[in-house]
């Protein structure tokens, strides 16, 4: 069974996010004054083959810790999609 893991990496709270600030200011300039905060991160989609979801969760977490996110400056979260085939 193939499993799709979606990894979302965001700047840690308290870490400067100049891109997020610039996006927020631009949205304000366009009249979207309700935007109280904006944070720009990364999205990584992984297709995992021949795995079961429970085992995959621990593996993807390890991938995040070792490569996909830098724990000094970033947080991550993982979502799963099960795909037949």
């Amino acid at each position, binding site marked *: 069974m193939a499993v799709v893991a979606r990894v979302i990496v965001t700047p840690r709270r308290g870490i400067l996010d*100049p891109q997020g600030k610039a996006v927020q200011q631009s949205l304000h300039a366009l009249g979207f004054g309700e935007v109280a905060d904006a944070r720009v991160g990364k999205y990584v989609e992984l297709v995992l083959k021949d795995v079961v979801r429970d085992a995959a969760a621990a593996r993807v977490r390890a991938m995040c810790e070792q490569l996909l996110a830098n724990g000094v*400056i970033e947080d991550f979260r993982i979502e799963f999609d099960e795909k037949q085939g």
Partner: protein
Amino acid sequence: MRWGVVVFPGSNDDRDALRVAERVLGDEAVPLWHKDRDLHGVDCVLLPGGFSYGDYLRCGAMARFAPVMESVAAHARAGGLVFGTCNGFQILCEAGLLPGALVRNRNLRFVCDVVTVRVETTDTPFTYGCRPGELLQLPVKHGEGCFVADEATLAALEANGQIVFRYVDRAGRATAEANPNGSLGNIAGVCNAGRNVVGLMPHPEHAVERLLGGDDGLKLFRSAPAWLGRDLATSRREPTVVPGP
């Protein structure tokens, strides 16, 4: 003394670094290919500037996994000298050999300029030949040079004298205007707890000859052989740490 300069795909200051060691200092220098685990007996590893692996994912994130980096980490753990400039500094942070991280410049602009840095401690292999508080003019060219770390890490860096360089104005004051990238505490360079690994965002390898605009960077390279040759019993100067901004 024998220098090694790591060459990653996308390194672009490796030739300048080799030139400093070979042509300016008159030492032996060898390029260290990223796929080669052998450090060829070098005393000091230089990690040059550039855009290793295209800066994919994060600056330095991919370079950290190059085969040569296992040997560089072992060399560092054994007390060997390691000096990373610009992308080399980013790689050392990603590899966990230096604390903190380098993120997008606070104003989102690539900065290409000459800056002044103040030597905050002479107790490292690359500032050993400087005067405490000495001001150096060095080029910068980077988009991700904003040094960040959590408060506990910053406090530890201050307490241990691990902040090696700060961005300052011509009068030596660490002002916001003198900070080219928004680094916390105007930090331009740090060292590890063992003091043998140093990272610096500006480029000393581009400032080694007056003909090319200045030779302040040469002091950093000349410090390393002096540090290795120092006589611990008699001639080692007391480490000097300049208080924070």
